[in-house]
């Protein structure tokens, strides 16, 4: 509306620019597999699906990656696991679950056969190593979202 003054900037070449935020308030239907996985997170349990070859997928696979068969066999896995790979986030984004520099890791949860991506709260790069043990830190709010796990943190570190 006229009256709400736009925050325009004149660039060095005289042309106009303005900040623009595009946001999409998606409200996603989950389907039965993700509904169960995410609602189990809200109950502070981590569950995965078992493929026909016995591999346990966390987050769950809706269909067997090898055969395409629907997977309905559920397994609860541990909330601790082992870092398989990691990288460092020196400057967190505003919407990360952690606001200090932290690590990302593929974490193989105890009882799972496929690692999942999540944040690891570590004070520095020196605290990170492949093979280290980490444990889930649950968010205060019990929500059916992946951020129900706020992050993982080193065990005994």
């Amino acid at each position, binding site marked *: 509306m006229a009256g709400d003054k736009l925050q325009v900037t004149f660039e060095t070449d005289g042309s106009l620019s303005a900040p623009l935020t595009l946001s999409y308030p998606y409200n996603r239907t989950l389907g039965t597999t993700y509904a169960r996985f995410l609602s189990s997170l809200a109950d502070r349990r981590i569950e995965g699906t078992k493929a026909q070859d016995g591999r346990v997928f966390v987050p769950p696979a809706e269909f067997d990656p090898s055969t395409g068969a629907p997977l309905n066999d559920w397994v609860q896995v541990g909330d601790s696991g082992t870092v398989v790979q990691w990288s460092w986030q020196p400057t967190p984004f505003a919407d990360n679950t952690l606001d200090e520099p932290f690590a*990302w890791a593929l974490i193989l949860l105890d009882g799972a056969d496929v690692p999942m991506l999540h944040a690891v709260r570590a004070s520095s790069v020196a605290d990170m190593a492949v093979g280290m043990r980490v444990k889930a830190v649950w968010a205060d709010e019990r929500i059916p*979202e992946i951020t129900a796990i706020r992050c993982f943190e080193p065990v005994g570190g």
Partner: protein
Amino acid sequence: MRDVGIVAFAESQLTYGTTNTPVEMIVPTVNEVLKNAGIERTEVDFWCHGSCDYMTGQPFSFVAAVDALGAWPPIIESHVEMDGAWALYEAWVKIQMGEANVALVFGNGKSSAGDMNRALTLQQDPYTVAPLWPGLTAMEGIGACAALQAGTVTERQMAEAASRARRDGAKNGNVLVSGSESADELLSRAVTSAPFRDHDLPAMADGVSAIIIAAGHAAKRIAKRPAWIRAIDHRIDHQNLGWRDLARSTSAAIAASEVGVHNDKVDIAELHTTFSHHEQLLINALQLRTDATRITPSGGALVGNALMAAGLSRFGHAARAIFDGTADRAVAHAQQGACLQQNIVAVLEGN
């Protein structure tokens, strides 16, 4: 199969922070590639565009982009939400189907429009990955960690790739960063986003790339020496990083095998290396012999990564080497997604 060749290539001056709109960015490069080919726009019977709305910051931006084409009388046009290299693939299919003879394909990206590292999170699973906002660099860092740990890539190879890209970039001119540092010098620098040093990351750019491909007689009429696309194939790995072996690029290896990279010598290979460890992963996947094949002589995306255009530019630079006789047989590669998820590989020949 019809003989289809790349007959012209144009690439905008790479910048960071252009004040032009995406459409204003596209027009000069589209006109330049037409001029390079020496044809009128009415001779183009199929147009295909690669771009991404999340990068442009404008829903349905590809519709506005048609303004750049002079689409009157109406044209036959298509769009892929992918790097322009996939637009080239669609055009190649269209020509193979006999529905077109001359196609103009282009890709454009304005990396300076926002924080693209963060925005590229949206390529990931929206339920279990995207809400965490890992960003592309973090995901690529996990891929690099996997490769380093498995020994399929070494830190030195990453530094060598970056060092060569910066030196080749200096020769190319149309890049955002260049330098003459040795791999040793680069290795002595600080690790910033472990396992990466700053030079392991792509220099994000605003830019446009455009290519004209044509069938048989039309190709011979337009170009003295077309870069014939002898084979082209693209493959995709699973989106979920945890399900993949990140120490190798399985999809690139299959695509390379399908197009017969090794049926003959490879003079040059233009690889779409956006993070330095990709180069060795791709050399492994394509089984390139670095003593016989010149790797990415343009400098590549490490020194100027115009999102959605940089992959098509690899096809352009590979074709240019055929045009000018520097190469008789070249490999062009482009990728999309995190950790080399999707790969397209083509063999180009001059004869």
